[in-house]
């Protein structure tokens, strides 16, 4: 609703309102675990947070849903999951100024998860009903509790390599080698 008082991956302090969502429940829990630096099942069991589900209709979405897609679009893929948010924050500003309503990108916290970041103010409206206002997002709370067992070991903590990015970079190297071998 209000400009953010703290910076995040796609925004700096004072930028307009922004909503960080994940496309899966596991992804959302992973983001919490990484943000809070939770390392063990016992720490995770102490969480007592609500989990919400939201239904979105977005017209202009920047698609960086895979590292190769971002690269083809001219955005450095490693920046998507870098612990330094600077390049994503710059890109977030550019996307907003060009009228994009959000960005779909790999989660830095869980290799197989995807995050959806929405620019601009949004208000939760009645779940299951077609939204009437631009700002409305049908949303409802589905549970209150802790992440399920088994997630914390899969979460990528800060300073650790991102498996999805590593796979992408390995594939790129293989493609380059194949291309070079073909040329020789």
């Amino acid at each position: 609703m209000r400009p953010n008082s703290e910076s995040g991956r796609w925004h700096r302090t004072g930028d307009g309102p922004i909503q960080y969502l994940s496309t899966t429940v596991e992804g959302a829990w992973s983001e919490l675990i990484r943000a809070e630096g939770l390392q063990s099942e016992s720490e995770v069991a102490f969480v007592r947070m609500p989990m919400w589900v939201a239904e979105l209709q977005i017209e202009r979405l920047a698609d960086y849903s895979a590292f190769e897609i971002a690269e083809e679009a001219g955005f450095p893929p490693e920046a998507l999951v870098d612990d330094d948010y600077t390049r994503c924050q710059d890109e977030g500003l550019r996307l907003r100024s060009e009228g994009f309503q959000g960005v779909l990108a790999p989660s830095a916290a869980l290799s197989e998860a995807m995050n959806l970041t929405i620019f601009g103010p949004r208000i939760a409206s009645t779940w299951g009903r077609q939204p009437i206002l631009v700002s409305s997002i049908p949303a409802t709370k589905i549970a209150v509790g802790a992440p399920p067992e088994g997630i914390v070991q899969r979460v990528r903590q800060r300073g650790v390599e991102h498996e999805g990015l590593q796979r992408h970079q390995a594939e790129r190297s293989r493609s380059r080698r194949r291309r070079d071998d073909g040329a020789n």
Partner: protein
Amino acid sequence: MPELLSSPERKRLVQLEDLLEEWLAQVHRDLQSATEDSRNEDGQIDADYIDRWATTAQRLSSQVNKEIPPDLDPYALSDLRGHLIEGLAAIYELDESRPLDSVDNFMVHAEAVRHIIRDALDGQPDADESDAKALVSSLSTQLPRVSRKELSKLIGLSERQIQRIAKDGGRPSRRLQLVSRLVALLWRAWTPEGVVAWFYRERPDFDGHAPVDVLDDAAYESALMLAARRGRAQHGS
């Protein structure tokens, strides 16, 4: 630390938050009905509905403006009044050809006001902050399975001193006040054991220190409050 609100002020804020929440939900419900029942052939929403909405929206703004406690944090108060003014501007500048844009604009500002009120209420211990006995009692209630020994470590007092406070009261230390405010933020997102664990987890934003290590350092005060709030926010790291 900014001053705490008095108990009647907190009560008034809770009522205002409830009022805004219910009003916003009602508008969404009404809009559903109005669009389902009353859209004319041009696809426009019923003008009578918009008139009625504008009247209630103005009334709501006026009520919030009158009833907001003047002792609210000055920054929050100024932010809140800014949203009220911008919300009213959305009503006065209503474009009859696109009335839902004005409704949407006002709703966004009304929700922002609700958030400001929610933020003001969070981090307010449910006790008189000048009364050490009340604060210790409130902490014991919010952290039911936490031992007095663990509590004493957090507050920075001996168990005997806590016993004495619980019996005789007295003036609270700044650390007791700060821990009370942090617990008021944390207990909604963590179990009682999780609240205690939060204080002992080292954080990169505190130069690798754990919150408990910096509780006596005034320079970390606002960072501690932000970190406690952050646990409840959306995350996209």
